[in-house]
Structure formats: C-alpha cells, structure tokens
C-alpha cells in the first residue's frame, strides 16, 4: 500500500486535468461554488463506496458481464445519494438537477472501477478513489470559484458571503456554458505552460 495511490489523483493523474474524464459535470455544474461542493461530495460518496464494493466482490463478478455489474452497483449508490440530497437539501437538489443521477454514467467512476478497483485490493482502492475524489473536487471547486466570482461579482457559499461583491459589472457570460469552456481551457493551458500537468 503506497501513499502515491492517493497523491497521484491530485495533480499527476488528475481525473479532469490529465485524464480529461468527467467533463460533463465539470462544465455543467460549476456555475456556483456551492453546487461544486455538493457535486464533489456526491461524487466522492459514489466513487469511494461503489469502487470499494466492486473491489470486495471482484472475485464473484463474471468477466463477460462486469460492466453491467459495475453500473448496477454505481447506480445503487447514486440512488442513495440522490434520495439523501433530495431529502436534506432540496435547493441543492434543484441546482444539480439531472447531473446528480448522471453520476451513474460518469466516466471517472466507471474508469476507476474498470482500471483499478476490479484488479486491486480494498486498501489501495480506498486510497485511489479518495485521491481521485479529492482531485475532482479540487478542480471543480477552483473552476466554479473563478466562474462565480467573475460571473456574479462575489462568492456566496450556503448563505455565507465568502467573498464580497467587488465587481460592479460582473461578466454574466462566465456562468453561462461558454464561460465553463473558457475557464477550463485557459486553466488547462496555463497549467500546461507552467509544467504542472
């Protein structure tokens, strides 16, 4: 068991920046930091628990039907988190909309299940999925922070004024879909230029 299994997900094999997976939620729900936090939490829950279960029962899954089995397991955890958020935070549920159930087909989760969890022991799977979740959370919170700040002028997280409204004429386009592509592209280009990824 190595620490690298955890840290590789943060930068070196960051699911969004390097593997370019899971771009739908990255682009779609990063309009506000609180949405990104909600998505990061739901995503981490589904990724860690579904992959742990897959890793635990990997000996019983026939090779031919492994993908449907993964999907069934992932979908079960998505249903749990979907009902949970619907029950405890209806406003967040409203904001995440279709992208909450769509975690089921998130390619990071299926990718980790196929490439990692179905071959490795429980401990390594835990580290790997935790690292991937942290890396995903890092990026979507960063992107949503930039978009919310430039798009609305300040940052409000669950009712708390995290950053005061200092921009007098915010660029509303930043919280529209093109803003997501712009921020993502500029961020990737800058990190590439600096040699981070």
């Amino acid at each position: 068991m190595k620490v690298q299994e955890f840290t590789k997900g943060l930068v070196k094999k960051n699911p969004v920046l390097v593997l370019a997976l899971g771009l739908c939620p990255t682009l779609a729900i990063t309009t506000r930091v609180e949405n990104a936090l909600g998505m990061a939490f739901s995503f981490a829950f589904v990724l860690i628990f579904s992959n742990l279960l897959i890793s635990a029962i990997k000996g019983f899954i026939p090779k031919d039907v492994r993908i449907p089995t993964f999907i069934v397991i992932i979908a079960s955890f998505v249903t749990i988190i979907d009902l949970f958020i619907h029950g405890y935070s209806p406003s967040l549920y409203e904001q995440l909309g279709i992208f909450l159930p769509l975690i089921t087909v998130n390619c990071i989760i299926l990718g980790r299940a196929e490439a990692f969890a179905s071959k490795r022991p429980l401990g390594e799977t835990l580290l790997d999925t935790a690292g991937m979740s942290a890396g995903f959370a890092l990026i979507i919170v960063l992107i949503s922070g930039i978009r919310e700040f430039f798009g609305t002028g300040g940052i409000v997280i669950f009712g708390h004024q995290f950053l005061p409204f200092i921009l007098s004429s915010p660029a509303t386009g930043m919280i529209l879909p093109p803003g997501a592509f712009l921020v993502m592209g500029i961020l990737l280009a800058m990190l590439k230029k600096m040699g981070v990824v």
Partner: protein
Amino acid sequence: MIPGFKPLVSTSPHIKDKVSVRGIMLAVVIALIPATASGVYLFGLHALLVVVASITSAVISEFLGYKAMGKKFTMDGSAVITGLLLALCLPPTVPIWMPVVGSSFAILIGKCAFGGLGQNIFNPALVGRAFLTLSWPALMTTWVSPFDGVSTATPLGEWHAGHGYTPVENLFFGNVAGCIGETSALAILIGGIFLIAMKYVDWRTPLSYIGTVGILMWLLGEPPLFHIFAGGLFLGAFFMATDYVTSPVTKTGRVVFGVGAGLLVVMIRMYGGFPEGVCYSILIMNGFTPLIDRFTRPKVYGVMKKREGGK
C-alpha cells in the same frame, strides 16, 4: 572562382516584393480612417476614447503576450488593427474598461494562445467582440442615436422588432444608431475600395459576401439594399472577412467563404434570435477556412489528374 565573390544560395522564394507585413497593416489602418472619423464625428469624443483605449490595450497585450511566450515582439502593426477593428464594432456608449478587456482577450486568447501572428484560427477582433457580447450582453446592446446621444435601437433592431425599415440613404451616410465604425457604409466603402485598388484585399470576398446577403434577402422578399447597408455587413465584409490569416488563400476558396458567411448572416437575421449576425458568421466561416483551402487547392502545373478506374 572570382575573388571576393560569395554566391548566395538560398531556397525559394527568390523574387521579393517591397510589400511587408508592416506596409499592409499601415494601408489597412489608413483605409480604416474614414470609418473611424465618421464614428467620432457621429458619436462624439467618447468614441475616440474607446478607439484609443482599445488600440493601446491591444499593443500592450501583444507585448506582454509575446514576452510570456518567449517570442520576440515586433511592432508589425497587427495589434493596432485588431484594437482598431474591435473598437469600431463596439457600441459608442461602452465604458472605457470594456475595450481594454476586449482587446486584451482578443490578443492574449484569440492570438497569442494560438502562437501569434499568422497562427490564429479566428479573427482576434471578432473573438474579442464575441467575448464582450457573451460577458456583458446588456452593455453591448445599448445604442444611442448620433449627435444627440438619445438611446434608441439600431436599424436592424427596429426591423427585428417589426418597426419597419430605416431609409437607405440614412444607412448609407451613417446617420443611424449602431457600432462606432459600422454605421456609415460610405466611409467603409472608401476605405474598402482603397484596399482593393491597392491590391491588398481580394475583391472576391466582399463581393460574394455582400452579394449573397443581397440576393438571398431579395429572394426572401426583404428589401436587399436595407440589409446590405444596415448593421456591420460592410465593415465585416471589407475588413474582417478579408483578414489574411483567417480567410482562405485560394480564389475559389474566398468566394466559398463569402457565400457561406452571407448565408449565415441571412439565416441569423431572418430565423435567429439576434437581429445581427455578421460577427458570428465570420467566426464560424473562420473555423471552416482550413477545410475550404483543402478542397479548393489549385491544380499543380504539369500534373495530370489520374483517370478514375484507369490504369
């Protein structure tokens, strides 16, 4: 061997013209003077301030951008044109920080990020304008009438709202609301004809572009002259669709580019949500430019086309 004679061996091209990038850019700036002057005359000194801010910011951005890329910065004047063109397609009422932001975006993202002069896929000035329209839609659609500065709608905006057609003579001389440099078709025409006469610009692009819009509008039962002179079609056709970097190099390709852009303008104006579509039509056709160039490649001299199925 003659003593002291050093034969100069180099690859082609061997024939060199006096025309330089700098010379072409200077000619374009001269050609844009009538449009700029008419904009300042119609909309007052604030318009001049927008132009100056935009050009200054473009040149400084290019300097910083080239520095960041580790390339040598040459004052070739292309940044001046980007800044000037961007300012000319902004509403005269914009706050001064908007041309500054727009030019920096146009140069840094629209040009330097692609590798500098000659590498960009999309016309930088239009990239800047599209970014500003996306980010601050309200500020980018605040129009005033010339001279008195009373807020009003553009001729195309009036038409889109079903309020009839502005007289063509007003559109021709520019006595209408609109962007700083787009209102006077006459001023743009003077600059455009100068560029065509000096052979800096191919007449095919503007003619096919404007012609397509005119003919299609006529076929659709709209007054063709109104649609030709209203909005930014002239500015776009003469100065933006003819950009060396982002438009096709072949003669056929230029016609295809013009017809395609004209078709898009008609589609956006007639069936789209916006009253005007020149900016997006040129940007979309910019994306097709490599493909157009590929399919309109001229025949190589002396090479016969292979017969289909022949031996």
